[in-house]
């Protein structure tokens, strides 16, 4: 097993920083997913860990040993590539045994290990075939086998499922999770697919423009996004973000914008009176975040009548309406509906169980529980939490992030 530490790693291409001062501490046996949009630096970071490119700054340690200047073959890491990178001129057996032959392992041992790995991955019947004679899923398993055969300290995977169809991707996702559980090795997995991140990871590191936005368990990054970027990146559809201002009314903090007045469940007086007699939070420009599944349809009224969500079979509850707007369009996803509503100048998405009785063109009123609201600083995008007498920008969980 391997503990992998990334210390303040930066990678420059000319003047541009593909990875910008990222630090990570990945424990033995952890399944860490590097998640982010295309071009965020996640693959570059993985390749730096693998030893395929040198960091411009910073250090990489494997089990406490500085491997920054050690070539890839000396790091005891195996990698599965997005394209699988199988050697086209070699059979499956020789592909799997390739790393062992490179290390001059005896032929008999190579054969034995290849047979063992092929057994684990259900490839025994395919050992004499060449990669071009295999399906995408089989190729993917051969690539895994080649990584598995030399029993490395950690596995690095660069979007290994992106070339598979949806059905096979789901099945292989489960297989990789099972493999991680069985081997207990460290896995670092790069993906832009949040479903893969949420379902496979023990921790997720979200990257944006080369910087680490947040690292935490899938639940933490989903429920307590450290920034508006993380909030908008995770979730399908993503979290609704509305520009608003903080207002104190009747001793309660509200997020207010045109057609929006959301009580945040924070009693200013109870939290402590401001020292200078004024409310420092009042008038502060923020972004209000509410996930589509946390918006409750209070009423939807159109030409054909009104709809109360409690009657429509959805799990929504009626409450005081805090957002009012018009339904622009409704997407039918089978088990649920996504309503795209125009509220003020912003489009807000609402997820509701079918049939929710929502119709395009109808007026809609929505509510949200205070505990389901998120506040972000409008300038920095960082998450805001209420502390004794004023909202402050807080660092994300565990790892400091420069804003």
């Amino acid at each position: 097993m391997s503990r992998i530490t990334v210390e303040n790693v930066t990678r420059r291409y000319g003047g541009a920083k593909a990875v910008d001062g990222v630090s990570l501490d990945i424990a033995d046996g952890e399944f860490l997913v590097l998640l982010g949009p295309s071009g965020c630096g996640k693959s570059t970071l993985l390749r730096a860990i693998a030893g395929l490119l040198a960091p411009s700054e910073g250090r990489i340690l494997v089990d406490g040993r500085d491997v920054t200047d050690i070539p890839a073959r000396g790091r005891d890491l195996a990698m599965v590539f997005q394209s699988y990178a199988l050697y086209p001129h070699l059979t499956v057996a020789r592909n799997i045994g390739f790393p062992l032959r490179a290390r001059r392992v005896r032929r008999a041992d190579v054969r034995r290990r290849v047979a063992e790995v092929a057994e684990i991955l259900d490839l025994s019947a395919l050992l004499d075939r060449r990669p071009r004679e295999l399906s995408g899923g089989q190729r993917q398993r051969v690539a895994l086998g080649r990584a598995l055969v030399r029993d490395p300290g950690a596995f690095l995977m660069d979007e290994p499922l992106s070339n598979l169809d949806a059905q096979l991707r789901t099945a292989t996702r489960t297989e990789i999770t099972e493999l991680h559980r069985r081997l207990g090795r460290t896995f670092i997995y790069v993906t832009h697919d949040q479903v893969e991140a949420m379902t496979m990871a023990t921790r997720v590191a979200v990257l944006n423009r080369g910087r680490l936005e947040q690292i935490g368990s899938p639940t933490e990054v989903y429920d307590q996004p450290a920034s508006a970027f993380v909030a908008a990146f995770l979730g399908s559809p993503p979290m609704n973000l509305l520009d608003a201002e903080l207002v104190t009314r009747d001793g309660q903090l509200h997020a207010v914008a045109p057609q929006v007045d959301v009580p945040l469940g924070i009693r200013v007086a109870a939290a402590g009176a401001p020292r200078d007699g004024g409310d420092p939070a009042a008038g502060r420009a923020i972004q209000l975040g509410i996930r589509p599944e946390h918006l409750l349809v209070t009423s939807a009224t159109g030409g054909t009548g009104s709809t109360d969500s409690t009657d429509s079979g959805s799990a929504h509850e009626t409450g005081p309406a805090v957002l009012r707007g018009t339904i622009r369009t409704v997407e039918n996803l089978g088990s649920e509906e996504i309503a795209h509503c125009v509220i003020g100048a912003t489009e807000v998405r609402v997820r509701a169980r079918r049939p929710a009785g929502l119709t395009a063109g109808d007026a809609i009123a929505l509510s949200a529980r205070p505990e389901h609201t998120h506040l972000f600083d409008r300038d920095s995008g960082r998450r805001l939490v209420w502390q004794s007498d004023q909202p402050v920008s807080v660092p994300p969980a565990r790892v400091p992030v420069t804003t």
Partner: protein
Amino acid sequence: MALAIEGPTAEQAVLEPVAAIAAADGDDIPGGRSRVMTVVGHVTLALLGLACVFPIYWMYATSLRRPDDVYKTSVLPWPLSVGSYRDALDELDLARLLLNTTMVAALTALGQLLTSILAAYAFAVWNFPLKRLLYLAFVGTWLVPFQVTMLPNYVLLHQLGLLNTLTGVIVPNLVSALGVLLLRQHFDSFPKELLEAARIDGRSSWSTLWTVVVPNLRAALSALAILLFVNAWNEYFWPAMVLQRDNSVLQLGINSFLNSTEVEAWGPLTAAAGLACLPIFALYLALQRQVINGFVRSGLR
């Protein structure tokens, strides 16, 4: 009462688009070239092909005519005769000429191939200071005319005592800028992930070249090998300078045969030339598939 399938059946649903395509199918292929253009294209290519093949055919046809029929213009050489071949073999030491030429061509081509692989791999895969400048300088030597380097090379061979030896013919030609240029294109387009996978799997750069890159570029290497071999095989001027003997390699031998006869003995001459071409044909036939693949991929077809 019976259960009925709602809407059109699958069979009906499939038939409709097929019928629509059938109706649209005319003389022209949608989005493609018309049949007339296709026929014109094929006829043009066939004529060009015939124009290329005809001189070779005429050479063998002449060599197979009876000595008295050499100047006949009938397309078919009838009756056949191997008299010209017998005369050519009597006049020329063909076995030794073939052996020498094969040795020179094979060693030159092998040397060029080896140096081209190493140089092209370095230029394609490694990053080092002044790489682009060095590459341009390297490839630029291709543009230097032979006549410019001929005399310095000749003087150098004289000083090294390599004049009049086959080694003297081979050594100055061991590097081919054309080979580096062509192979670099192939190495550049070689999947980088395969090279990275080999690094992760424990291969050194040297080992990656021979165990991953070269086996996967056999087509390109075969194409280049045959090109280099044919170039070396057909070389006349440089061997003529270095060897200073008329009977060392095939091209010099044929020329000497042409000059030695008072009358123009076209029959034995074409027979000797025909024999000189056979090894090239054999090599091409053996590597045909790789050669075509290699040229197609390098855009040189």
